[in-house]
């Protein structure tokens, strides 16, 4: 089973190189943590995995299909929560949930109900006027309730309070435990990331500067992810 195959992908925006010869393969169910400084290419990489952006050169395949031609069979098995959400603002939370759920045959209403309770999502609140944290919870719910096989989370914890962050981590653990899924999660909150990520990919200026299991990295550096991050990114600068 191949969840994600990225081979030698370069992405240029005009003259700016956003991804520079990036390769990444995810072939087993796993939780992969993506770390890197601002502008290092994390979001661009996630958008490549779901076909929202296409490589300038190189090959990008998700669930075995070239991301340029991803269609319903694959897209219905991908979930993504964007860093800056593009939720439909004029809807209420509840209306948006029922709208999005209609696109997925595998939508799990029991899970939806549980997440609404756990994350204290107000179905009646307007999306546009909700706080960033509440929109982030909604994005997460919309990304996971169809039990995607590839789940992409771009900074899903950044606007949440510590209690909600732990709740979201518990949701991810449960989702990961029960299903055939590869989760790629980008985060600056390394304390949270190192609870759940078993593999760490570190980007710096569009290049992969580290890709190893978290346990290996810990035994190699003998430090937590925070210190490791400073050393890896510092060393490559």
């Amino acid at each position, binding site marked *: 089973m191949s969840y994600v195959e990225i081979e030698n992908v370069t992405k240029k925006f005009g003259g700016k190189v956003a991804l520079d010869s990036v390769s990444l393969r995810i072939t087993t169910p796993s939780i992969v943590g993506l770390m890197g400084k601002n502008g290092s290419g994390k979001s661009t990489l996630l958008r490549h995995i779901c076909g929202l952006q296409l490589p300038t050169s190189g090959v990008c395949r998700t669930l075995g299909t070239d991301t340029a031609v991803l269609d319903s069979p694959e897209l219905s098995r991908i979930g993504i929560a964007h860093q800056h959400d593009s939720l439909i603002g004029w809807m209420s939370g509840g209306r948006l949930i029922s709208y999005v759920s209609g696109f997925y045959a595998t939508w799990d209403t029991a899970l939806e109900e549980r997440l609404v309770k756990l994350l204290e999502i107000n179905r009646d609140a307007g999306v546009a006027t909700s706080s960033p944290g509440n929109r982030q919870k909604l994005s997460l719910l919309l990304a996971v309730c169809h039990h995607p096989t590839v789940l992409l989370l771009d900074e899903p914890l950044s606007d949440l309070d510590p209690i909600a962050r732990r709740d979201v*981590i518990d949701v991810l*653990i449960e989702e*990961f435990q029960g299903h055939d899924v590869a989760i790629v999660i980008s985060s600056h909150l390394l304390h949270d990331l190192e609870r759940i990520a078993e593999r760490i990919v570190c980007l710096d200026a569009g290049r992969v500067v580290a890709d190893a299991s978290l*346990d290996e990295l810990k035994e190699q550096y003998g430090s937590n992810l925070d210190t490791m991050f400073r050393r890896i990114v510092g060393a490559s600068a």
Partner: protein
Amino acid sequence: MSREILPANLVVDPNSGVPVFRQIVDQLRFHVASGLLEPGEELPSTRALSQELGVNPMTVSKAFVLLEQERLVERRPGLPLVVRRLGHDAVERERLDLLRTTLEPAVLAARQLGVSATRAAALLRQMLSEANE
């Protein structure tokens, strides 16, 4: 008879430089050697423990595989892992192994400080008797 108490006795720090699976293995080994976990006692499931600790289930599963390889726990199809009954010698060896690991930094410190073996041993004996009082 898996006890609720177990996860409470298991404290992991995901933000330490020591891999979480190693923290779990070390603590469970200690609990088995000290008798806090008795033979026949069931361990929580991978799912329960990973949720309790808030860590990746793969991490817990890796720890359990290692404990199984060390023959401290026994896997039974479809049932929780159970603490094995170790022979008296095996328990004693395990205890001494753990104590040795704990004492290694002390030995290093004694050498660096130039404290003689006789004096270091006497200090240990004295501390042990103080702890017993």
